[in-house]
């Protein structure tokens, strides 16, 4: 029998070009049987360049996944996003209102439906940017899979913030896994301290004091081993009234919690938590080799930060601070590798940097100067969003009428030392060594007056970073007075705020990069700071300034703006989430970059093709959100007129 498929085509190798890519999130969550069901239900659409794939006229009955080519998402007249192979679209159209209630099966909480969040009601259209092929997942098939596989359903149908959280949870699971890989062996073990069961309570207490131990192990008469802690001693003698000469044997506790030295640190934590104890016994080949305390366990995770903190506090000269400062980079790497959240890293690094600045200033400035001045940090340092050492942005506010002849030398020393610690000088000269930023309160007020009433580009920038300023050392009331003056000078001047907000739009936020990404040749790195982080920081800053908010941290400002009703709650939640994610990707890009010397490169470029699938999805969603935030800012401050 002869197979005839005239003319016969040679058998081709490799994957089916019409096949669906199940490796992509969230489709990778599907089981083999679910994948098969999905593959069987798929339709294929072919769209020549410039045709509308989805528009108002067309009833939507499927979720689209790009197979080949790229699709532009247009809102109003503008291209809001470009979807490349593997990207999906049409869900909003499928499920009605813009971003309103995600249609999670169980999550009825968003309910209400029709209240959908205002402004974004403009019609979206999807246009083929080139000849395109798409897979169409029929609505019925999608819903059947979502019901079958809740994780998949949540990832596909959930709304933006929910979707972000799921992806983040997936990631933290993985990072948690890395964390839980740590072994007890890696922690400090207290050497075991034994006493015989026949020894008296007094002898046990003496042994503990001699060895600075919090407990002793007791060899019981029958070969068992027990433990007696300082707390037990107190309870037995003081409360229960046992004489100090009584033998420890009958009074020790023999229900020892023990783990092997090669067991996971995580298990030790679980064991301690479950039994509400602060130490466990560690064995090796069945023999007791030491005690693991809860604080030692936690120290494995944070010992770096404690060590640095102590180094800073005990510094007697700037050179000691230099050592502490250098270890911050190592700390960031460790924390990041251990899976610690980026907002926590930012808090910690901000705190350490400020401690270093404060200590340095205290070392250099005599008490008299300290009492009559306020050292401030500005920009990202002031907002508490410093992840790595970036340019110095600092200044000094002096009390009016206070004169200190040695000040220029001290200020110059301060800046010089910081440079030697690895904080690069500010290219704009915003640092103590510049007399413009070391002046009396009255001088600052004059400058603020100028920034507000004669706004040019430099004035705008000065105003922006000064608005972010936080006090670090000296008298914080000086900064408070200057900021109070700033907020008092602001009138409800539309022109001023438009002007101030305008830089939010000054850098393009790319959306075409994902289509480009798949056509390797055009995959270009994205400046994540300009495209994503800066627009959020500055847009939020403009809104906060308009409302005279005193907060400096971006996420706190967002939350406060939502509370006073200046930002839609949904937008606020999405924005805070996006800001954190973009900061994480930025840190990751830097930490993962090839190590040069011991410093981390100051590089804001993110190569989308080097991102993991998860990050790429998040990155894309975040940039789309930044784009719509920019529209909001443009509309609010009337920047298009």
């Amino acid at each position, binding site marked *: *029998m*002869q*197979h*005839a*498929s*005239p*003319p016969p*085509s*040679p*058998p*081709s190798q490799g994957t*089916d*070009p*019409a096949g669906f890519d199940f490796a992509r999130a969230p489709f990778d969550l599907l089981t083999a049987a679910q994948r098969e069901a999905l593959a*069987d*239900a*798929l*339709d*294929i*659409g*072919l*769209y*020549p360049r410039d*045709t509308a*794939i989805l528009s108002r006229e067309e009833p939507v009955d499927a979720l689209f996944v790009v*197979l*080949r080519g790229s699709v532009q998402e247009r809102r109003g007249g503008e291209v809001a996003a470009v979807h490349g192979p593997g990207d999906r679209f049409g869900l909003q159209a499928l499920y009605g209102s813009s971003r309103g209630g995600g249609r999670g099966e169980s999550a009825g909480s968003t309910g209400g439906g029709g209240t959908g969040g205002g402004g974004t009601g403009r019609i979206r259209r999807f246009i083929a940017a080139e*000849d395109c*092929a798409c897979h*169409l997942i*029929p609505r019925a*098939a999608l819903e059947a899979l979502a019901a079958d596989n809740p994780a998949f359903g949540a990832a596909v149908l959930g709304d933006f913030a929910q979707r972000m959280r799921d992806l983040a949870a997936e990631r933290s699971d993985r990072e948690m896994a890395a964390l839980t890989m740590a072994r007890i062996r890696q922690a400090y073990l207290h050497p075991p301290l034994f006493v015989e069961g026949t020894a008296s309570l007094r002898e046990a207490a003496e042994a503990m004091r001699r060895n600075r131990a919090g407990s002793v192990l007791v060899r019981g008469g029958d070969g068992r081993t027990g433990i007696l802690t300082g707390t037990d001693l107190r309870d037995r003698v003081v409360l229960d009234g046992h004489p100090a000469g009584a033998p420890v044997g009958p009074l020790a506790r023999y229900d020892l919690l023990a783990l092997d030295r090669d067991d996971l640190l995580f298990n030790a934590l679980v064991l301690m938590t479950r039994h509400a104890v602060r130490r466990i016994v560690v064995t090796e080949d069945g023999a007791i080799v030491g005690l693991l305390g809860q604080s030692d366990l936690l120290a494995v995770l944070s010992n770096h930060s404690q060590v640095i903190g102590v180094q800073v506090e005990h510094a007697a000269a700037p050179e000691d601070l230099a050592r502490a400062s250098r270890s911050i980079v190592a700390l960031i790497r460790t924390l990041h590798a251990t899976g610690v959240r980026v907002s926590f890293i930012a808090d910690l690094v901000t705190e350490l940097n400020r401690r270093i600045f404060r200590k340095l200033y205290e070392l250099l400035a005599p008490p008299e100067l300290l009492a009559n001045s306020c050292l401030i940090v500005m920009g990202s340092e002031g907002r508490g969003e410093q992840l790595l050492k970036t340019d110095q942005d600092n200044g000094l506010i002096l009390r009016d009428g206070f004169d200190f002849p040695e000040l220029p030398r001290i200020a110059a020393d301060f800046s010089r030392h910081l440079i030697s610690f690895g904080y690069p000088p500010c290219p704009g000269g915003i640092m103590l060594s510049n007399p413009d930023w070391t002046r009396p309160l009255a001088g600052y007020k004059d400058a603020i007056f100028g920034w507000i009433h004669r706004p040019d580009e430099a004035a705008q920038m000065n105003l922006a970073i000064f608005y972010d300023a936080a006090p670090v050392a000296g008298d914080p009331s000086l900064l408070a007075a200057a900021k109070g003056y700033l907020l008092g000078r602001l009138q409800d001047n539309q022109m001023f705020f438009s002007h101030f907000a305008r830089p939010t739009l000054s850098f393009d936020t790319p959306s075409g990069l994902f289509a480009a990404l798949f056509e390797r040749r055009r995959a270009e790195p994205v400046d994540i700071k300009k495209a994503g982080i800066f627009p959020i920081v500055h847009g939020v800053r403009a809104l906060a300034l308009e409302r005279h908010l005193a907060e400096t941290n971006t996420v706190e400002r967002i939350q406060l703006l939502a509370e006073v009703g200046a930002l839609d709650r949904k937008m606020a939640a999405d924005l805070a989430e996006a800001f954190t994610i973009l900061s994480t990707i930025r840190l990751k890009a830097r930490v993962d970059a090839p190590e040069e010397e011991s410093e981390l490169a100051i590089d804001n470029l993110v190569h989308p093709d080097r991102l993991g699938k998860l990050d790429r999805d998040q990155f894309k969603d975040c940039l789309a959100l930044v784009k719509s935030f920019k529209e909001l800012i443009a509309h609010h401050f009337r920047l298009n007129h």
Partner: protein
Amino acid sequence: MPNPDSRERVAIHCEATSYDPAVAQPLAVAAIRIRGNRILTGSALRLHPGSDCGLGEAGDLLRAFIGDRPLVGYFLDFSAAMAERLNGRPLANERVEVSALYYARKIRTASKQAVDLRLDSLIRDLDLPVRADDAFGTALAAAMAWLRLTQDGR
């Protein structure tokens, strides 16, 4: 508008024991409806007459699936002949041969070279995301080629 004609069509392909319609026995039949820009692969008909269904049964299923929709195919006359064999009666449906459409397209661009009508070449030239290595793949390729060739004809 690419397809002002909103009628559905059916892309069809048969594999058989021989190239000679007079003696060939159909082995595999695939039929896929086309609606607008969409190829309804999710509801395609795939039959293996003689193994997973009887010949007559296959004929009935196929006839019901096609209805009076125009047929689209590559080397369509052969597939149609096989379908008629299963049906036991002639198919009166309008027929569109994609290789003919393709030929007409290529000849318009006035190349002096002979037009390569092999299916693989056609798929490559039209840049279709498909691999025609069975009855379904070939029917899908025919559907895609038909869409591409008629959509572009604006």
